[in-house]
């Protein structure tokens, strides 16, 4: 059910305009079967708009999008049977119980919980003890598991998840990604969006997206290899002063806080930073540490934004 290139999702020249705002500015990408594909970018980048078009909830202004060779405009009804969608805001019925929600979604798609239970079993067993509880009374992590179960209950080929881990603590995020990776291994193609840059590393391929445009699209490793600059981590005992001093140093290209260190890049011709630590010491800094490091996805994202 994929096209000649083996793509299960293909998007060409996709544009979406709301009044005067161009939310998506003519993007192209494709996803192959069994991929775990990430749309990585901040709020307002256009991630939700793209997903709403792919899930046939909204028409594009221009361009085309196909899912399994079905067009999102002309074949929207057929497409819906192949897709599971977990929107960003909790989409379940708060005043129905856990079990009632799941039954509801199964019935809408003309199936039963029993028929596809094996697919959701790993996830659903964790909330099954609470199956008579109203969905509105569940904790954030449990709501998320229920929403995922409901998105999967009709056994879709493609799962689309819009920021499933936003506002979720680090433990629940990790558990959620483990669930996604297991679903991918079961042969489900997954498109997921996130504003957390570190989650890019868990995807097979990612699109880095900002202001309605894709800045880069590749495997996380390739994106890092293409960073194209030397990068250093530097710290001193007075990190606030260090930021001020480096920002006014005309050899320095960028200075960004990164945990307990600052990440810095330099302008062309200043690649040798051996003299920097002694200079900073002379300026009154103490505890200066500097080392060259490999970029991470967030460094790459910021470099592409410049």
């Amino acid at each position, binding site marked *: 059910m994929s096209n000649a290139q083996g793509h299960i999702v293909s998007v060409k020249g996709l544009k979406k305009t709301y009044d005067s705002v161009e939310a998506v500015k003519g993007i192209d990408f494709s996803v192959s079967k069994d991929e775990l594909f990430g749309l990585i970018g*901040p*709020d307002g*980048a256009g991630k939700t708009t793209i997903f709403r078009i792919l899930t046939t909830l909204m028409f594009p202004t221009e361009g085309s999008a196909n899912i399994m060779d079905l067009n999102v405009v002309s074949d929207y009804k057929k497409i819906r049977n192949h897709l599971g969608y977990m929107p960003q805001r909790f989409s379940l019925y708060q005043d129905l119980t856990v079990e009632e929600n799941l039954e509801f979604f199964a019935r809408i798609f003309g199936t039963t919980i029993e028929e596809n239970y094996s697919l959701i079993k790993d996830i659903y067993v964790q909330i099954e003890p609470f199956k008579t509880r109203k969905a509105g009374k569940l904790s954030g*992590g449990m709501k998320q598991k229920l929403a995922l179960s409901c998105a999967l209950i009709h056994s879709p080929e493609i799962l689309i998840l819009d920021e499933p881990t936003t*506002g979720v603590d680090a*433990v629940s995020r990790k558990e959620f990604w483990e669930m996604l990776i297991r679903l991918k291994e079961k042969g489900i193609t997954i498109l997921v969006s996130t*504003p957390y840059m570190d989650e890019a590393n868990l995807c097979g391929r990612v699109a880095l997206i900002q202001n309605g445009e894709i800045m880069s699209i590749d495997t996380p490793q390739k994106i890092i290899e293409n960073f194209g600059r030397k990068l250093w981590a530097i710290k001193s005992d007075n990190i606030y002063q260090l930021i001020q001093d480096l920002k006014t140093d005309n050899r320095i290209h960028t200075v960004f*806080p990164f945990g307990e260190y600052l990440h810095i890049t330099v302008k062309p011709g200043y690649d040798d930073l051996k003299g920097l630590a002694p200079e900073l010491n002379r300026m009154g800094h103490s505890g200066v540490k500097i080392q060259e490091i490999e970029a991470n996805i967030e460094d790459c994202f910021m470099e592409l934004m410049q």
Partner: protein
Amino acid sequence: MIKSTENIIEVKDLVKKFGDFVANDHLTFEVKKGEIFGFLGANGAGKTTAIKILSGLSYPTSGEVNVAGYDVYKEREKVKKNIGYMSQKFSLYEDLTVKENIRFYGGIYGLSNKYIKEKTESLLDRLKMRDIQNSLISSLPLGWKQKIAFSVAIFHSPKIVFLDEPTGGVDPITRRDFWEMIYEASHEGITVFVTTHYMDEAEYCGRVSIMDRGSIEGLGTPVELKGQFNAQNMDEVFLKIAR
């Protein structure tokens, strides 16, 4: 950052119960003046409950809590006057302009018109937002809103500012601009009490506490915590505590 020995927040054996449920189970910690203090924990660990008590919005069940020199049982209004608060969910009025929002908050804190006027001018210059002073908040990008929200939260020069997940969803460059504003506030002596789900941001903090199921399970500098829990980064520390 100012190294201070003066405690601006003192919490001893703080307990908060809702019926049988113990949301805060004997919390004890101090925060120093000018410190950037990270307050972390899983969803439902009891962070919001504690912040509500520290900001004078709710009473403890038992324990001693002193904020900015005031007792949270007896001097709640004084506590409120001496703190600022900003959350990702609510901070500015979308249908008011930038200038109107500043004016509104200044008025709420009882600042004089003259003071509000002067400080608004210097703030607009500092934020480089003079051109948009009469724009509605709703028309601005998220990152700008958050910078304005933070500036408004410290407009009345509070001793402490509480930031509840201030940077969610913001692009990485804006997130860093935001942290530079936090460093600056701390440099000027304002204590910053911040919650976040970005574990790398925990490493920006001077000290961090990590809550799990109502109790503080980790408390120290990021370097100390990484050593104590034998972890490479704060993400690992968090997972070891909360999993």
